[in-house]
């Protein structure tokens, strides 16, 4: 199994094929906009664009973003399991030594290297625009790799499978992301869920059309800056029909979807009925002194995909 090739394919699908739930939501939005308005023209162009990109194998958007990877790597064996396997190598044991052959081919030392190599190849193939710029020298690396670029989160899983969720996060939507520290008197926002609601409405209003609406809005509430920033962005991986398992947050997701759309910012920010396709909220226990609300925006080109690899092969979703 060739991990690098599988990740190049993951890139191709992300860059050229809009997820089916996003396409369906855009088509529903099109039906809501009045014919002959800039909003309707915009959403029709967006839908046509998705078809062209898919058919021609070309990037949906010229800003192919910053790739963000969420890797769950196969579980590593415990000391006891290693000992048992070493002592009784012939015996069938409950724990199967994780078969790593599917992760490796010559030149691939680990998952991170495989992602970097796939990133270079995807850039060569035109699935990605070279976007990685050194802020010190202002030089573009030319292949989308650099310090902390792409962003790669790796955690250990509980099975022998390797699961990679990824997104291409555009710069326009990244720039309109917002952070609030509650209480915020100007919004009348206290340290509660209603305060969070006010922050999200304000963030969408401030974003206007600058980050390519209709947006997917990821929200995190909690008490550490780094954690809430990462958690809000990770919500953008959720499919549009996914609801928070927390009843209060699920209710707020629905309420905010309705209210943000009533702002009337519309597709491309030109006015209209669809400003947001989904609001996805998560929480992190906060420090008692802190109350942050982080709002992360996904543009309508919400490019995300999953690659799962186990001993039986690769699955793309």
């Amino acid at each position, binding site marked *: 199994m060739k991990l690098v090739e599988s990740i190049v394919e993951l890139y191709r699908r992300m860059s050229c094929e809009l997820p089916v739930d996003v396409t369906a939501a855009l088509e529903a939005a099109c039906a809501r906009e009045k014919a002959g308005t800039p909003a309707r023209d915009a959403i029709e162009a967006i839908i046509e664009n998705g078809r062209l990109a898919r058919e021609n194998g*070309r990037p949906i958007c010229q*800003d*192919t973003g910053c790739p963000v990877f969420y890797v769950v790597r196969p579980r590593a064996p415990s000391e006891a399991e290693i000992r048992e396997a070493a002592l009784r190598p012939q015996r069938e044991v409950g724990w199967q030594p994780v078969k790593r052959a599917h992760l490796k081919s010559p030149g691939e030392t680990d998952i991170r290297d495989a992602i970097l190599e796939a990133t270079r190849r995807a850039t060569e193939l035109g699935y990605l625009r070279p976007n990685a710029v050194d802020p010190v020298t202002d030089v*573009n690396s030319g292949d989308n790799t650099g310090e902390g670029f792409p962003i790669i989160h790796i955690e250990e899983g509980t099975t022998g499978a390797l699961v990679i969720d990824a997104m291409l996060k*555009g710069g326009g939507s990244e720039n309109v992301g917002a952070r609030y520290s509650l209480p915020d008197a100007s919004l009348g926002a206290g340290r509660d869920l209603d305060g969070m609601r006010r922050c999200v*409405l304000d963030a969408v209003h401030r974003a206007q*059309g600058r980050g390519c609406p209709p947006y997917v809005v990821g929200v995190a509430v909690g008490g550490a800056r780094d954690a809430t920033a990462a958690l809000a962005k990770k919500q953008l991986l959720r499919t549009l029909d996914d609801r928070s398992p927390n009843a209060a947050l699920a209710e707020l997701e629905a309420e905010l979807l309705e*209210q943000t759309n009533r*702002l*009337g910012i519309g597709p491309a920010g030109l006015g209209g009925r669809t400003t947001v396709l989904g609001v996805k909220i998560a929480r992190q226990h906060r420090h008692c002194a802190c109350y942050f609300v982080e709002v992360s925006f996904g543009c309508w080109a919400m490019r995300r995909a999953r690659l799962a690899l186990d001993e039986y092969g690769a699955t793309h979703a």
Partner: protein
Amino acid sequence: MREVKLTTPLSEKDVRALEVGDRVLLSGQVVTARDRAHRYLVEEAVPGKLPFDLAGGVVYHCGPVTRRRDDGTWELIAAGPTTSARMNAYVGALVERFGVRAIIGKGGMAAGLLKTFGECGAVYLSAVGGAAQSLAAAVERIDGCHKVDEFGAPEGLWLLGVRDFPTVVTMDAHGRSLHDEVEATSGRQLRTFLDTA
């Protein structure tokens, strides 16, 4: 909505006749420029000494995906607009000093530019953000490029030959901005949500 077909270089008369909401299908040549290229044009370049003419010209806020063919020519892969607000500080000078008549981008620009647009006869045209394939379909060829090696591919200036490139006027030479209107309307709605909770 009115639909207007225009060809570059744009005349002052044609541009002044445009109003917010008009669909404009552009043909001729547009020049891409983003952050770095704007700084270059305003702080370093001299009008008339560039390898292309911006008088009556159209600047497109875009960092395209391109690929060099084996014969050295360029192929356009994707070309949608980038966020124009980042270039707020520079666009006035492009209009005043270089004679640019139209900016294409997404998200709109600062209200202060409406005065310059009115004085000089210029407009802001919105293209659909993210619709890089629909828009690339209206680009017939790459006529050339400038500073691509120095600034990197997205930041370079690309000369794109376009036919019926689809845009809509969202800031005109009569002081109207659809962006400001949408922001004001949505702001009123926002305040009702914040006050009635």
